[in-house]
């Protein structure tokens, strides 16, 4: 069994290269069939996300003459080998399993510890399995990879805290409100970061947003995406009491949200809290607003500071994840190896017993007339001798496979040595 993975990811390959090499989800079954045909792989899985394209294959040992996966990838996507040679990585054997477990656990992700990749790995495996391209080996590896990913995220803090400004903003608001789904978000200005931040709240099911902008027409793009209603900047003060969370990202040299305005809004809300997320530079919300009761203000420096701390803490957690991945990868390899060993040992025993039976069949006529008891005794004798002869090699094969010190093609050597089919 030759396990291998070739691929490109966000670390080495620029987005243009990743775009060229990526696969459409609908075409994956077809691509998997082509990959197996070209490379002679017994099983294959293609993981294609916006940050990586990886081809996982398992081939029977010594399947010589077949095309390399990397060459197939270049041919299939219509790029010269030389164009991707420098950004391509390859792993074989145990390293493939380690790599898969790191990817599934989000340890190789652009945002360390992100969980979206778990669903992507699961989907890649599902497509391969449903289309008949993943079998025993990848069933073991991918199912274990998903278990390891879950274990990593439940036993370590690798995914703790937010690792982006929008995620942290939403988490902070979640520290004030019990259920963001019943809250209304107001966005002041229609900047790109503001849109991302609004999206983070929208994902948590907040009510239709209020989009405040100097030019109401410019707010239409956000309304089209998130729903809600547009309000002119001149009506900001009057609309403020309706909002539970206010995201500001307006290009303005003056504060557009002042303490007086907020105090009036809080009175109108009968003391209900408001969270201000000010991601504009220069700032849109007067810092004095944070001194008002039940008002919580976070500016871009606060959010970036928290993001940096969270990422640093996640990196710190890496040290706890690596030993887990290593031990699980070894266990997976052992599981696969044991299955192979059982199969080889079974075949070896069958072959040797068949050979003994064949020789006995030839010998019966030479022995003349024998009683049934005598015949049975000879059959038992031959079985015992065959078993005794096999005991040494089978024990040695099992032990050698278990301690992992054998050469990669150990079972192949055994197969050839005993001429096992």
């Amino acid at each position, binding site marked *: 069994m030759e396990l291998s993975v070739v691929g490109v990811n966000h670390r080495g390959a620029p987005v243009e290269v990743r775009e060229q090499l990526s696969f459409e989800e609908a075409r994956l079954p077809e691509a998997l069939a082509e990959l197996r045909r070209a490379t002679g792989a017994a099983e294959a899985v293609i993981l294609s996300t916006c940050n990586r394209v990886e081809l996982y294959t398992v081939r029977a040992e010594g399947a010589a003459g077949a095309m390399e996966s990397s060459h197939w990838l270049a041919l299939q996507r219509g790029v010269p080998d030389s164009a991707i040679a420098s950004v391509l990585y390859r792993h074989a054997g145990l390293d493939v399993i380690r790599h898969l477990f790191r990817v599934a656990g989000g340890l190789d992700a652009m945002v360390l510890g992100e969980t979206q990749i778990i669903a992507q790995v699961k989907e890649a495996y599902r497509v391969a399995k449903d289309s008949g391209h993943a079998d025993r080996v990848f069933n073991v590896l991918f199912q274990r990879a998903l278990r390891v990913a879950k274990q990593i995220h439940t036993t370590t803090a690798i995914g703790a*805290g937010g690792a982006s400004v929008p995620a942290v903003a939403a988490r902070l608001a979640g*520290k*004030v*409100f*019990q259920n963001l789904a019943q809250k209304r978000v107001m966005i002041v200005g229609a900047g790109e970061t503001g849109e991302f931040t609004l999206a983070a709240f929208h994902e948590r099911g907040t009510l239709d947003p209020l989009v405040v902008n100097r030019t109401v027409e410019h707010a239409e793009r956000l309304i089209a995406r998130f729903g809600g209603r547009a309000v002119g900047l001149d009506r900001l003060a009057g609309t403020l009491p309706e909002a539970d969370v206010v995201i500001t990202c307006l290009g303005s040299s003056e504060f557009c949200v002042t303490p007086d305005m907020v105090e009036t809004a809080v*009175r109108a809300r009968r003391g*209900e809290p408001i969270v201000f997320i000010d991601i504009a530079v220069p700032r849109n919300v007067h810092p004095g607003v944070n001194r008002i009761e*039940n008002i919580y203000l976070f500016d871009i420096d606060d959010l970036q500071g928290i993001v940096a*701390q969270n990422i640093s803490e996640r990196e710190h957690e890496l040290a706890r994840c690596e030993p887990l991945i290593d031990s699980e990868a070894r266990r997976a390899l052992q599981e696969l190896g044991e299955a192979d060993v059982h199969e080889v040992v079974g075949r070896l025993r069958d072959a040797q017993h068949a050979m003994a039976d064949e020789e006995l069949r030839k010998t019966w006529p030479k022995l003349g007339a024998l009683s049934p008891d005598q015949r049975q005794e000879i059959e038992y004798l031959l079985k015992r001798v065959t078993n005794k002869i096999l005991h040494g090699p089978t024990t040695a094969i099992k032990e050698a496979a278990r301690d992992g010190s054998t050469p990669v093609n150990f079972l192949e050597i055994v197969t050839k040595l005993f001429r096992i089919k």
Partner: protein
Amino acid sequence: MLTPLLLHVSILGLAAASALGLFATRRESPSMLGSARILAIVATLLVLALQLRRGMEFGGLPLVSRFDTLLMVAVLIVGAALSIDLTRGLSVLMIGALPVALAPLLFAAAIGMPDEHPERNLMHPAVGVHVFLTLGAYAVFGVAFVASILYLIEHRQLKARTGPSLLGMMPSLETSYRLTLRALAAGLVLLTAGIVLGYLYGRQVLSGASWRLDAKVWLTTVSWIFYVIVFGMSFVPAFKGRRTALASVACFVIVMATSWVASFWSHFHRYP
């Protein structure tokens, strides 16, 4: 011999659960949290076993001495916090409640078990219910106290914008605040019922009006008024949030201190 042993083991168990709980919160470790929870349950069951044993000794509810009532307060606080933790997933509240429950147990150990048997009229079921309701109210006020402390810590961190520490296992401000209000409301209902029952029983059984001027009666009534004010304040926009939480904390501290002191002054509520 067995009673002091049960008490000391349960104190050790609750202390270990508190320490483990705080450590679990710091490390954000669910497995440690689970261990702390189990330890707290075991310690509480030991206290209950102790109370059962005492109840069987003198054939009634074990609520007729200062020692017993302190044990009962500890059990009720842990019980209330654990049930909120298990039903609402508010582990931090349970962890915060453990040291609060540990305090009465330590007091109980300090004053020791009374040698004398309770007076006959204290064995009446109405007295047992009256004491149980009042202690239940104090336990629920204890939960409100812990929820308010959580609110104040979270509020302070959010106002100070102190980074990831505020993104840990703490519940949202709204959760802590709602819990505070619900606990205050439940405590008021229990305390009102306890006071009314005590009054009705006292009027029926005791002669004269001197018992109505008892320090404990007066201070409990004042506590009830304090809590009504705090609960009412929570509906005033200007007092919503931090101020109500502060008032709830202050009220609990004052009530616990005066209740303790009043039990020494009181003639009528003087326990063995």
